[in-house]
């Protein structure tokens, strides 16, 4: 259940979506993707959605290459019975090159690193030809270099005029983006990250149980939401 949500995503902007587990991040995404009907209200989107789900939900023992996974993005564009043609394959290869994986098209998906798998998913969303991209906790489980690489990629994609929604638990990271949307079964706040993320907003978002760690440069640097955790890669 999620209510009172109202926000605008402008082209070229990144919105960080903060909230506890069960706070409505997935509900928001599934509504935007058309899987759930809103009980009331509506939204308008210019262009299609591209989706980057959490990588740990997908099978690693599946007999598919990085290119096969990128090509899955054509399913929503082509009739269900139609095979992707030469053009679609070229688009998928170009998307893989775009995310820095041109040499990896033939590699088994399960043999890629966590960061590479995440970027294959970004490539698949690009194949969906998305003006708006939804990323579900894409930084979870990534090591530092992979996270930086992904961060840079998202900045470039935003620079091309795409609107990007990123669900995350990382408050510091959100401060580098354009807007923050705080959800806790309702919309707690929406706005530019640094002025919006006050202590009171964070407490409402995470249910009043945040832990403030004295940071070297003051507020924002050391706030640890209770669900902030890094899964180690499997």
């Amino acid at each position, binding site marked *: 259940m999620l209510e009172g949500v109202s926000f605008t995503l402008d082209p070229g902007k990144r919105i960080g979506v903060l909230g506890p587990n069960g706070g409505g991040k997935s509900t928001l995404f599934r509504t935007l993707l058309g899987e759930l009907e809103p009980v009331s209200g509506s939204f308008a989107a210019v262009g299609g959605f591209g989706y980057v789900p959490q990588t740990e939900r997908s099978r690693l023992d599946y007999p*598919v290459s990085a290119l096969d996974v990128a090509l899955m993005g054509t*399913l*929503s*564009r082509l009739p269900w019975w139609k095979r992707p043609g030469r053009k679609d394959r070229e688009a998928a290869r170009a998307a893989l090159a775009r995310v820095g994986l041109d040499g990896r098209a033939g590699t088994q998906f399960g043999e890629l690193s966590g960061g590479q798998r995440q970027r294959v998913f970004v490539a698949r969303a690009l194949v969906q030809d998305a003006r708006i991209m939804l990323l579900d906790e894409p930084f979870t489980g990534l090591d530092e270099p992979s996270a930086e690489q992904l961060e840079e990629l998202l900045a470039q994609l935003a620079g091309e005029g795409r609107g990007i929604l990123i669900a995350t638990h990382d408050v510091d990271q959100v401060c580098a983006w354009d807007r923050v949307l705080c959800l806790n079964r309702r919309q707690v706040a929406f706005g530019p990250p640094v002025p919006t993320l006050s202590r009171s907003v964070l407490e409402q978002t995470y249910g009043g149980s945040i832990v403030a760690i004295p940071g070297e440069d003051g507020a924002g640097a050391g706030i640890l939401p209770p669900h902030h955790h890094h899964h180690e890669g499997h």
Partner: protein
Amino acid sequence: MLHALVEPWRFGFMQRALLELVLVGIVGGVLGCWVVFYELSYSAESLAHALFPGLVVAALLGVPLVLGGAVGVLVAAVAVAVFGRTPEIGRDTSVAVVITTLFGLGVVLGLSPSSPPGLNELLFGDLLAVTPTDLAVAAALGSIVLVVLTLLYRELLVVGFDRSSAAAFGARPLLIDLVLLGLIAAVVIIGVQALGNLLVVAVIVGPAATARLLARRMVPMMALAAGCAVLAGLLGLYLSYYANLAGGASVAAVMVAGYLLALCVRGGLLLRASSAA
């Protein structure tokens, strides 16, 4: 040696048995690749047992066995699909309840005084009694299965990869589940003549499990599974002919042997890869 290889095929019933196994092997091998990745092996096994009461009823009513099997399997497929999605029951429990009920019903009907003789053929199959009509039915049903699998290939691939996000990519997980169960039912009906409903699942699960150990892409895996199934059919028939063993059981035994061999080959490959690294 050559004579020994050619000898069994002088007989029409052996030719028909081989043709039946080739048809069942190709369709079962290809479908099996989806069955192992959708973790439907147990459901497939259960559907085969659900066929039994359908066959008994058909025998009692004097209608074609294919019809009885189709109705029995459809009832079970729908029941499994519907109850398997109920969170409080869970898939394995619901399958068990549905199948035990149906299988029990079949046994009760089959043991009634008025039931016809030869029920063990329904359970174990009779490869050597395959008729041209059986072959025509197998070819027709098998073609339908392959066409449906070809048309739904991309959706099957997306749903099997990550069910939870499949809808976001335009796939229909519930529909795919139902279609897959329906196709399993069709292959069980095709294969029950050859292998009987106790062994028919071997042709769906065995070759696909073998191919999974060796192939790295979906389409080569399907080709390999179909090839393994056909080869197992051929070798199983030789075994049955010269060792005077039951046909269906011989084929199933060769499939298991093939799986064990593939395990060894893969183990060897992994060993070599790790020592090379």
